[in-house]
């Protein structure tokens, strides 16, 4: 790869809220907590309609396999357990709680007893913590690595998406918790080294994390260029450790685990107090919000309440994003709840809302030059539209992380990422079919040999 690191795009940072300390949102009237806020099986509600719940009380058990339990961030009464449609279009169950406003914590909340690797992992499993950078991968699964395979924890403090400053605030306001969470992970999983990866546009975070981890051995803080998508897992691992995560491999195959800084702070918080993950720091910004802010929001709070807490709209909202402008999801309505992994709510007016018109590809090659993973976006889009699945496989569309650099840079404004998303889904079907065909063929051959 290039001497200068992986390519990427330079974006306007728009970290308008970097100096705004997070404040708790007024308790909403009700919250809607979806059962799928993580990758894996949905959680299973363990409360019934009419039950009284308190802050920190478990309302859903982890499902089978890859999953995570869910806790209430408010006190009140379970009003209904209903099916809702979330912003991705998926339908899932959600627990709706009417808040009493008292925010009474659950009784008998005590820090978990942790003295070795097993009890540490058990505690993380109970905490309901998932990857808070946005992916929502259950943290316990990520941390449950075979002993001796991993030598470095890469702490993701890149926060490369424009606008979002919730990780920035965590590193500034809770640097001790981040360092403590890291120390716990390193101690119980016997990992000797850790590297913080923070973009250069956050010098105060770099200084603060250096200060907070000065006493820790094996920990370094790396200032990375402000080049999107610095916080993408493969990109971050390459730029902090120089290691490449191979196709179909996990970070642990390269001897690393990647943990978001806010996830670390949540781990430390849980081990200190026993209070599970029930609230989230969310950046509220964008051209159509009156007072951009960082808010601490109970999980399940409707986006409407979050925006109201920022003085409402400054102009007619035309597009509302959950997440950043490069990878965030456009919401259908204001009832969408804040999830565990939501780090921003962005509100835009007419001017920024409409996607530009697509024109013909002029083969300028910018998408190829700037793809951090070295893919060929324009060719992948061609193969997709021509229905050429074999070519999609050869072009390795399945490696695409949907960072959005190709669509961003395209002078013809082509919706390349969307094409890759659809292509990835189609490729999975194709590969499945190929596998079945191969198996059938082998069976036939086996049978004819047997004759």
């Amino acid at each position: 790869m290039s001497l200068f690191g992986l390519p990427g795009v330079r974006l306007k940072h728009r970290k308008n809220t970097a100096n705004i300390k997070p404040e708790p949102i007024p308790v909403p009237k009700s919250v809607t907590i979806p059962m799928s806020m993580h990758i894996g099986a949905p959680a299973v509600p363990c409360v019934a309609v009419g039950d009284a719940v308190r802050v920190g009380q478990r309302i859903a058990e982890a499902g089978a396999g890859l999953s995570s339990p869910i806790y209430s961030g408010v006190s009140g009464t379970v009003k209904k357990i209903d099916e809702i449609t979330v912003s991705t279009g998926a339908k899932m169950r959600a627990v709706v709680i009417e808040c009493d406003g008292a925010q009474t914590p659950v009784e008998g909340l005590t820090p978990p007893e942790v003295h070795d690797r097993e009890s540490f992992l058990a505690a993380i499993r109970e905490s309901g913590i998932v990857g808070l950078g946005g992916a929502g991968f259950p943290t316990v699964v990520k941390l449950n690595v075979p002993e001796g395979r991993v030598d470095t924890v890469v702490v993701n403090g890149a926060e490369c998406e424009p606008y979002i400053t919730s990780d920035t605030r965590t590193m500034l306001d809770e640097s001790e918790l981040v360092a403590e969470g890291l120390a716990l992970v390193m101690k119980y999983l016997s990992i000797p080294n850790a590297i913080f990866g923070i973009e250069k546009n956050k010098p105060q975070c770099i200084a603060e994390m250096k200060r907070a981890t000065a006493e820790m051995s094996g920990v370094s803080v790396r200032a990375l260029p402000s080049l999107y998508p610095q916080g993408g897992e493969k990109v971050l691992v390459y730029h902090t450790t120089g290691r490449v995560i191979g196709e179909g491999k996990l970070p642990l195959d390269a001897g690393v685990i990647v943990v978001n800084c806010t996830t670390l702070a949540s781990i430390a918080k849980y081990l200190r107090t026993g209070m599970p993950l029930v609230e989230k720091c969310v950046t509220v910004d964008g051209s159509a919000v009156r007072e951009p802010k960082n808010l601490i929001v109970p999980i399940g709070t409707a986006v409407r309440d979050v925006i109201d807490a920022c003085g409402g709209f400054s102009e007619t909202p035309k597009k509302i994003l959950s997440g950043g402008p490069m990878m965030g999801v456009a919401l259908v309505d204001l009832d969408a709840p804040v999830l565990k992994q939501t780090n921003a709510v962005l509100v835009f007016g007419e001017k920024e809302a409409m996607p530009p018109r697509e024109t013909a590809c002029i083969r300028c090659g910018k998408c190829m030059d700037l793809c951090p993973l070295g893919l060929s976006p324009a060719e992948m889009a061609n193969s997709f539209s021509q229905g050429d699945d074999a070519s999609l496989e050869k072009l390795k569309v399945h490696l695409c992380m949907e960072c959005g650099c190709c669509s961003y840079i395209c002078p013809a404004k082509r919706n390349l990422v969307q094409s890759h998303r659809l292509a990835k889904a189609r490729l999975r079907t194709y590969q499945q079919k190929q596998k079945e065909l191969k198996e059938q063929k082998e069976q036939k051959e086996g049978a004819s040999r047997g004759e």
Partner: protein
Amino acid sequence: MENELLVVSPSPHIRSKNTTQRIMLDVILAMLPMLVASVVIFGFRALAVVAVCVVSCAFFEWGFEKICKRETTVGDLSAVVTGMLLAFNLPASIPLWQAVFGSLVAIVVVKQLFGGIGKNFANPAITARIVLLLSFAGSMSDFATKNDAISSATPLSGGEMPTVLSLFLGTHGGSLGETCALAILLGGAYLLLRRVISWHTPVVMLATVALLSFLLGESPVEQLLTGGLLLGAFFMATDYTTTPSTGWGKIVFGFGCGAITVLIRVFGSYPEGVSFAILFMNILTPYIEIWTRRRPLGGAKK
């Protein structure tokens, strides 16, 4: 306010300011020094040829798209770029109807019949120039500057070689845009600065010509400054649609163009080989692109 429908579209939700139209505008701006130089060297007849080519290219693009009921793409300025480039490849004395015919070939035959912008496999201006050269050999090699009483040939075709300074300033016979090296280099530098083109193709193409002509006993300086080499290297061999888009692909392409140009000039029966070289490499472009595709980060070999 609450009842307003929200826009739901796939990410990313922000886009760069760069557009096809802006890129084409940059190419047009980069060609302005050549336009000025051609008027200074060849007189106002040069301006007439450029105007005719630009207007007829834009008209044919609009007309063809109207007939086919396709969306009009004249606004992206690519037809204007083609028109200017075609004019710069023609002698000032060309009959204007031949310039119109060239525009028809460039836009309709080479570009639109293959699907319009981004779909053509050959460079429209170069192919049109070759068609004109083969059809109207006489008027296509009638090179005269406004100071010449009689027609003079391009230096490459065996006439007396002008001084290096004259070659650099372009005060000698040739096609409209190809004689003034200074103007081409100014435009090329602008395109490089604006990152419309990358260094790979022009640098490799020019280096190949210099080296190969030196090895074959020709003067590298004269070979670099004569004919359509500079114009081709900066403005035609860098065309997005008809050349490879990978870095290594551009290097292979530049090398091929340079090598074929020298071989035609030294051993071929035509005095000039840049257009043929670029057209030939245009045809190889899809293969070069497949051979030079980047390997994805961490991508397994098989």
